[in-house]
Structures are given as structure tokens and as C-alpha cells.
């Protein structure tokens, strides 16, 4: 996808194409489009997630607009690339809410940018849907119009902890991260959770990802008697170095952690393919291969669709695409059902129950804007990657 900040994605060729600044108005008096303000990080240091989600987002918008839109209204996607920079996210959010007066904001897709953008969008009273995991990013009191269609860090960590403690039966755990906001926050949150589950955190650290040598930390972990390593980072280089160092130390210990452990970029940085064995990353039951090697019907159908429109899955992850796809459909469904005013959308979502997404079933209540179900967060075997999806990790009852 070419690098453009404001890109208007507006249906088929026949559709009304209106420019972002409202410079040109539609030639025919078409019904007013639904404006979705979209804040992905398509460039910059943590853009791989954004690029994956973007494929699903664009697919859904095209699909809906090609089918005539929502109640005859086209979706107009107004894009501002945040470049993984919170400063640009603030400027972008301001443009979308204050100038473009969008109906809904979709994103930002990274926590660092969401932390800055969510309060601003909330101040302007515009409904917002984002897939960022940091817990404080939904808060029905502070941000009554902000919803999350993805798990929280709490859920992600709990799933990993469950796997390590309950399924792998490891009691001494090393919890580490890089020094980013996401990483440090995760370690802070998960270590106490592990303790609650009866495990011991024998090693806990934030490691500078710019430092190429992880051996000091890994040796310290081993000396501390760690039986499992839980790294929390979206930095592929950092995660690959953990796998590589473990391999070179010939240390037989499982690595259980963030989804990026299973990304293609991490794989590319491995010194030997077998260093990817016994690495388990977070994933989501709906988009994992079950024991029989098949996807669930909803996901299988989605993959077929992706194949048909020739969307590449090899260099990204299925759940990213699914997440983007679901997000747009959730917004479209709300408008279709009740209309596009902020109250209407919020009201609809507040009562959403078991909304069937490819990525997961979403349920909101007025008190709970985290829509993802606990048991849908699972772990998977990273070395089973094919078509952007993985096998469920061993030990789960299907």
C-alpha cells in the first residue's frame, strides 16, 4: 500500500468520491457517506501490525461499498498514518475529529499512540473502536464512547500464564520485555498475576532492545532457575535474539509470549529454523488450526475469501487481517442497525451480544467495553505457521 497520509478509500469507481478536505462535493446528490476516521501506523518502527490490519480494513470497506454501502451510504475511510509516533497520532486524531468530523474513529492500532489519542477523541464525543491491548484504554467512565474489539493485556497475559502454569506445569518463570511502553507495562502486569497463580517469578527485567547481546540476561535467567521464558515485546529482533540465544546456549526451556514471536519477521531473523521449536505465542482460538489441522468454519470461509481477492497472507498474520475486517464490519453493522449519530452507535454497541467476528465473538455491556472473551485467547505453536495461522499449542482440550 503506498504511503499516503490522507487517503480516501471510497468504494467502486461509480461511487461518490469526495476529497478529504471537502474540496469537491459529489457530483450526484448521493446519500451522505459514513466517515470512518482511521489511524493506522503504516510506516515507522512498529508498523507491521498496522500493515496487516490494514489489509482486512481495506477489504471490508471495498466489500461493503461494492455491495452498495450501508443503507445506501458509502463508507468513506479517511486515513492518517501515525507513523508509530504519538505526536503524529495526536495531530491525526485532531484532524479526524475536529476537521473531518468523522462518525467513528477506528484506531490507532498501537498502544503508544492510542494512549495519547483516546482521551482526545473522547473529549470530542466521537465513538471510537480500537484493538489496542493496554487495559486503561477502555474505561466506561472516562471514555464512554470508546470500545475495544480485542483482548486486553490482562487477558493476553492470563492466557499465557495459564498455559505456562496449568498446562506446561512450570512454576519458575522468567518474565522479560523490551523497554517500550507495551513491554514494560506487560511485565508489570503479568508478574503479579503469575504469583497469584502460584508460580514464582525468578527473573524479571526490561531489556534494551537496541543491545544486540542478550546472553547476560539469559544466563541470569538460567542461574535463577527459570523453567519458562515469557518475553513481552513487539520487537521481532529482540524476540529472535531470545530464541537464538536460547538455541546457542542449548537451553531446553519453552518460550511463551507475545504474538510477534510467531511473525515472519521473527522467523527471518532466526539463525537456525529449529530455534523456533518450543516457542508458543498468543493467538486466538477462532483463527487457529484445530487438532484436525482445520480452521473453524468462519475462519476457513474468510481465508477462502482472501484467496479469492488475492490478499497475501504469507508475510503477515491471519488474525491481524481478521481484526481489521471485523472492525469495519462492526462499525457498519452499528450504522446499519441504528444510524450514525454518536449516541446511536454507542447505544447499539453497548448492547452488542455475541457479535460473530472472524477474529472472535464480541460482547459489550454499558459497563464493559472490552468485548473479547477470555477463553478465546490461547497459545499456539509458532513453528506451525502457514497462511498466517498456527496450530493450537499442545495441551489444549479442543
Amino acid at each position: 500500500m503506498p504511503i499516503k497520509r490522507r487517503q480516501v478509500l471510497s468504494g467502486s469507481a461509480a461511487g461518490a468520491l469526495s476529497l478529504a478536505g471537502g474540496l469537491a462535493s459529489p457530483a450526484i446528490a448521493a446519500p451522505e457517506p459514513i466517515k470512518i476516521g482511521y489511524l493506522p501506523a503504516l510506516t515507522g518502527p512498529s508498523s507491521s501490525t498496522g500493515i496487516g490490519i490494514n489489509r482486512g480494513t481495506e477489504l471490508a470497506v471495498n466489500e461493503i461499498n461494492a455491495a452498495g454501502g450501508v443503507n445506501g451510504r458509502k463508507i468513506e475511510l479517511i486515513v492518517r498514518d501515525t507513523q508509530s509516533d504519538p505526536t503524529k497520532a495526536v495531530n491525526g486524531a485532531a484532524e479526524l475529529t475536529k476537521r473531518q468530523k468523522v462518525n467513528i474513529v477506528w484506531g490507532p492500532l498501537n498502544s503508544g499512540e492510542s494512549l495519547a489519542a483516546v482521551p482526545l477523541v473522547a473529549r470530542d464525543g466521537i465513538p471510537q473502536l480500537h484493538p489496542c491491548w493496554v487495559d486503561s484504554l477502555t474505561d466506561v467512565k472516562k471514555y464512554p464512547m470508546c470500545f475495544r474489539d480485542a483482548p486486553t493485556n490482562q487477558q493476553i497475559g492470563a492466557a499465557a500464564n495459564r498455559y505456562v502454569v496449568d498446562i506446561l506445569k512450570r512454576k519458575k518463570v522468567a518474565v522479560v520485555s523490551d523497554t517500550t511502553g507495551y513491554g514494560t507495562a506487560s511485565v508489570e502486569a503479568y508478574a503479579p498475576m503469575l504469583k497469584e497463580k502460584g508460580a514464582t517469578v525468578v527473573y524479571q527485567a526490561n531489556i534494551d532492545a537496541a543491545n544486540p547481546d542478550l546472553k547476560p540476561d539469559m544466563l541470569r535467567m538460567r542461574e535463577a532457575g527459570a523453567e519458562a521464558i515469557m518475553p513481552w515485546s513487539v520487537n521481532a529482533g529482540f524476540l529472535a535474539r531470545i530464541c537464538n540465544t536460547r538455541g546457542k546456549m542449548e537451553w531446553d526451556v519453552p518460550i511463551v509470549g507475545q504474538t510477534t514471536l510467531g511473525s515472519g519477521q521473527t522467523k527471518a531473523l532466526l539463525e537456525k529454523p529449529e530455534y523456533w521449536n518450543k516457542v508458543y505465542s498468543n493467538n486466538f482460538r477462532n483463527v487457529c488450526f484445530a487438532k484436525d489441522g482445520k480452521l473453524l468454519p468462519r475462519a476457513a470461509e474468510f481465508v477462502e475469501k482472501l484467496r479469492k481477492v488475492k490478499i497475501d497472507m504469507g508475510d503477515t498474520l491471519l488474525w491481524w487481517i481478521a481484526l481489521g475486517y471485523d472492525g469495519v464490519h462492526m462499525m457498519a453493522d452499528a450504522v446499519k442497525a441504528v444510524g450514525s449519530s454518536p449516541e446511536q452507535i454507542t447505544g447499539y454497541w453497548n448492547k452488542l451480544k455475541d457479535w460473530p467476528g472472524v477474529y472472535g465473538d464480541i460482547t459489550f455491556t454499558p459497563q464493559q467495553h472490552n468485548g473479547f472473551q477470555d477463553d478465546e485467547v490461547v497459545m499456539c505453536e509458532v513453528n506451525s505457521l502457514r497462511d498466517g495461522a498456527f496450530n493450537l499449542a499442545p495441551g489444549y482440550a479442543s
Partner: protein
Amino acid sequence: MLESIVSYGLAIGAVYALIGITYNVMFSASRVFSFTAGMLGMLGGVLGALFIGKLGLPAIVGFVLVLACGAVIGVVTEIVAVRPVLKSIEQHLYVLSTLAFALLVQQLTAIEWGTEAQPFPRLIPIGSGWLDQQFWLPLLACAATIVGLEFLYRRTLVGRAFLAIAEDSYAARALGLPEQRLRLASFALAGVIGALAGFTGGEMLLAFFGNQSILSFYGFVPVALGGMGSNRGAVIGGLALGLFQQAANFLVGGIFAAVAVFVVFIAVLLLRPEGLAGATLSRRV
């Protein structure tokens, strides 16, 4: 643990030392400190990964191409960012012009190559543990560079001309030495050394645009420690820095290791601004 400190510390130290030498070679020829030293190191890794990893060229061809690119970029640096500001060197415009040029190249790399670290191919599939190529290759490159420079400076006429220009460019010009061409050659040489640093350190540092700032800073520390223009100082300073950093890494952990290096850097500069081994006194009036 000691083995890891020593093998890794020396390896990364050798990369820093080579970047330090890159600073020095440019400085000797032009009295200019150039921000492009770290950039050359970064490019050495990225171009190596591009030629060998992405384009699949044989390692040796890729290696030669990387060095050639380093030389070309060195020459371009001289023409674009150094020569135009040499006339008014006392205004220190070179700090700005080389910073701008280095940023330009870094951003271009970020956009064209990507902002994610990418793998650097393994070149010689022998050795493991502390005998791994990623540990001895930078040391070998550092030793080869030192021997090569020594040979150049002591045994060849061009090398002596480099020394002559570094010592007294006015007298060298009067003798009919082609000062401008020699300066260009120095920058090309610096380009080769910088690219060599990045290439041999590639497996450790990966092909990553962000290495530029790391190498710019950590490569400069040996120069500050060893005294500007002194290659021997740069090598000793670089290896010492690598060991110190790695030891700090083991003892106090990543974040504080960076702080420790910074504190040592500032302390040395404040106590001995001319470096631990240098002395300069210039007439001002």
C-alpha cells in the same frame, strides 16, 4: 560469563573501534568530524543484507560491493557535505552539513529498506560458541584495518601523502600534492572502513537503520577517549568500551549500562577534553 563478556565485548568493541577509525581518517584529511561515520556502519550492515541476503549474490561479491558502495558514499559525503563548508571551518558548519547528510541517508534507508531489523546472512558456517564468526569477524576486520593502514601510511607514497596532509596541508599543497584528490581518497577510505565495520558486525547488529545513531555515538566514544586522530587510541578505546559496556551489561543490566557508558564519556571529556592520550594547543590570536 567471563567468556561471554570477553568474546562479545571484544567483538562489539572492534566494531566501535573501526567506526572510531572512520572518524579519524576523515578528520585527518579535513579537520572535520563527520556524523557520517555511524551512517557508514549502518549501511555496511544493510547493504550486506541486501546484496547477499536479498539479492542472493555470493558472499565475496557482496562483500566487495558493500565496500565499493562505502567508498562511493564516502566520496559523495566529501563532495556534498564537506568540501563546500571547508572554507569556513571555524564556523563549524560541517557539524550541520554532515548531520544533515547522515540523516538524509538514514531516512532514505528507513523508507526504502524498512524500519524493522532484518537478518544479516551468515557468511562462514563454521565455528560456534565464542568461536562463532560474529565474534571473530569484527576483530579480524579491525586487525586487518590496522595492519592495512599501517602498511598504507608507512610503506606507500599515497599513505605518506595522507599523513603529510594531516600534519600540514598548506605545506603539502605547496609541494604540489593533490590535496583535494587525497582528501577525496581519504573519504573513500573512510567509507570502506565504516562499511567494513557494519558488514563484519552485521550478524551481531542486524541490518537495521537504527544502528546509525548507536554507532555514531559509541563509535565516537573511542575517539574521545583515545584522542582525535589517533588510530591506536581508537582501537584501545573501542575495545575497552566494548568490554566495559558488556561487563556493565552483565553486572547492572541493559538500561543502566547505557547510562554508565554515558557517564564515563562525559567524565572523561570534562576531565581530559583532549582525550586520555592526546594533547592539542592551538594559537588563537
